[in-house]
């Protein structure tokens, strides 16, 4: 095949097809070493080393949210997004691994837990707690999966434009011949489903290690290439200073607003002369900025992260992940935020890189990559976006299967009624059903939800379950009733506020200047404390099990 005879869209399709083929091959290889037991399929027989653990955790936590969401949000609101999400996450993710992850790993290893719900059931001496937690965790995972579904379909559609003009027609002529959104999302879901089915968590860890390396390298390459095409990073920033200076800071003074109005009037009177349509300044709120610290607490409650924590060979294997997390988050986020800022004012060959009428921030990164990178580079970079998307979706799919097989079927119907092979199969079937539903929901919501906002709602929900988890580990007085009260308060407040925000469709919502997560987190904490203090404490046996016996190991 002569590569030079392919148009840019076809080159992108070829590179992405090769990339997906490589993932399927890795899935097949991991199948060769898979033992079809629950512990091997869902926690890789607790045998992963430091590097694999770090790569898996980074691949899982850094999603489409980190690439597409961060650049899109930087394009919309400027540098504030880095401080809100990335630097807070660097401090707090590592704290969660140190304070929560290692403890849960120790309990998991000692008492044989495969899922969070197994831990909560034992800790709170409540068989029915799983029935409350399971639907909540699944419901919170669905928007997170949607982030992947929406991002993969959008990215594939943008980077493959022009590939097959005879097959795929669009109302927008710029997209003619692109792999349509529905097909791109479908293919991504099927490839991920295949390799997690084949290799379980070990296969997923192998694939994630590869994908993490790919998107780390390609993220930096993407930033360098785009800066180079814009005349170097200094020139790219100079264009922002000229057209949209408020994207380079967090405040917007009356002079900034005046300047914006003046430039907008200029652009409206003669768009060709002004080239760049100025973007409206969005001054950030200091209170909101501070309260974003609650968002990264969500990692402590991610079911898929819990599953990865359990795969560690020993507690010492967490060390590299704790130290590496803030640094790798920086390596991934900083280039994406710079790209998003440059995109606001980027001019190439006398034309704006981002169309002035663009409303969907999810499209910023795919568009700038397509316009400024060479076809092969653009396709490779699209592969990097897919790597980020798929390395999170796979872990979430697997966590869903694990929770259903172990917490619902195994626990309530009877673990001994099923062989390990049957339980794994049941888990796989549940994954297919949830993924199919998420996919259909993703088709319905296409273009109506920003990846960043949807992700923040999802993280807010998980973060609000953090008080009950932290108390379960560190406060022996936490009671069963307190746990129920906290979970119900978190779920109720989250749903009420999410509905108030149009189910993620409307802009960023704050209440009295506070982010929704602050209110939900407060409600969950107050309920936990008050109810725990007035109800019967856990039995001495449970207190000894979780606050005494683990110490004997040393």
């Amino acid at each position, binding site marked *: 095949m002569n590569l030079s005879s392919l148009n840019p869209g076809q080159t992108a399709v070829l590179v992405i097809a090769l990339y997906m083929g490589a993932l399927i091959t890795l899935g097949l290889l991991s199948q060769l070493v898979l033992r079809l*037991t*629950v*512990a*091997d399929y*869902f*926690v890789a027989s*607790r045998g992963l080393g430091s590097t694999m653990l770090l790569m898996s955790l980074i691949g899982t936590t850094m999603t489409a949210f980190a690439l597409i969401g961060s650049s899109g949000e930087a394009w919309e609101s400027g*540098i*504030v997004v*880095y*401080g809100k999400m*990335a*630097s*807070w996450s*660097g*401090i707090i993710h*590592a*704290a969660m691994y*140190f304070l929560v992850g*290692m*403890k849960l790993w*120790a309990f998991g*290893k*000692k008492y*044989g*837990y495969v899922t969070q719900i*197994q831990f909560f059931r034992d800790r709170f001496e409540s068989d029915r707690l799983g029935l409350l937690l399971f639907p909540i965790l699944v419901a919170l995972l669905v928007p997170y999966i949607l982030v992947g579904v929406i991002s993969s379909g959008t990215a594939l559609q943008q980077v493959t434009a022009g590939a097959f003009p005879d097959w795929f027609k669009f109302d927008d002529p710029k997209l003619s011949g692109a792999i349509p959104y529905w097909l791109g999302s479908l293919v991504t879901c099927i490839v991920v489903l295949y390799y997690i089915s084949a290799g379980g968590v070990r296969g997923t860890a192998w694939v994630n290690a590869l994908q993490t390396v790919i998107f780390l390298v390609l993220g930096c390459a993407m930033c360098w290439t785009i800066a180079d095409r814009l005349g170097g990073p*200094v020139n790219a*920033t100079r264009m922002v*200073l000229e057209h949209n*200076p408020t994207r*380079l*800071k*967090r*405040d917007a003074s009356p002079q900034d607003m005046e300047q914006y109005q003046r430039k907008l009037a200029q652009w409206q009177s003669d768009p060709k002369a002004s080239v760049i349509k100025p973007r409206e300044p969005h001054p*950030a709120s*200091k209170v909101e900025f*501070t309260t974003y*610290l609650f968002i990264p607490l969500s990692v402590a409650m991610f079911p898929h992260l819990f599953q990865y924590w359990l795969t560690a060979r*020993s*507690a010492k294997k967490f060390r590299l992940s*704790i*130290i*590496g997390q*803030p*640094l790798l*988050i*920086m390596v991934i986020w*900083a280039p994406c935020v*710079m790209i998003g800022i440059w995109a606001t004012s980027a001019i190439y060959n006398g034309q704006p890189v981002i169309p002035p009428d663009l409303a969907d921030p999810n499209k910023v990164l795919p568009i700038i990559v397509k316009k400024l990178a060479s076809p092969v580079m653009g396709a490779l970079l699209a592969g990097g976006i897919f790597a980020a998307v798929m390395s999170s979706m796979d872990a979430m799919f697997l966590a869903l299967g694990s929770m259903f097989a*172990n917490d619902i079927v*195994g*626990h309530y119907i*009877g*673990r*001994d009624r099923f062989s390990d092979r049957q339980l794994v199969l049941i888990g796989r079937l549940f994954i297919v059903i949830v993924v199919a539903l998420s996919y259909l929901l993703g088709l319905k919501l296409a273009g109506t939800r920003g990846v960043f906002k949807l992700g923040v709602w999802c993280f807010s929900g998980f973060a609000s379950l953090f008080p009950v988890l932290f108390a379960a580990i560190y406060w022996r007085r936490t009671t069963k009733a307190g746990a129920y009260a906290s979970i119900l308060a978190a779920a109720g407040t989250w749903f009420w506020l999410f509905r108030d925000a149009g189910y993620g469709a409307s802009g960023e919502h704050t209440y009295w200047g506070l982010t929704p997560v602050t209110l939900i987190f407060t409600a969950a904490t107050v309920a936990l404390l008050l109810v725990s203090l007035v109800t019967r404490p856990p039995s001495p046996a449970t207190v000894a099990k979780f606050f005494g016996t*683990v*110490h004997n*190991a*040393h």
Partner: protein
Amino acid sequence: MNRVVIALLILLAVLHQDFWYWDRIEPLVFGFIPIGLAYHIGVSMAAGILWAMAVHYCWPKDVDVPDESFTTADAVLPSERARP
């Protein structure tokens, strides 16, 4: 040292609130990174260093579970094994 590391981590969380750079673009670090962003990149680097210190000086003693405490009866909880 334990307390020093904890105090430094709390200080880093406080310093994260860099209201003093809220309305500033310049200086542009390396000529292209606005100071507000460069500061937070610095916060990320400091977090890496402080967590390395935490791992070294504050390692918890109750998390090193020996291998023999988990048998490969494979994630079947005692309560579930007893079910009919």
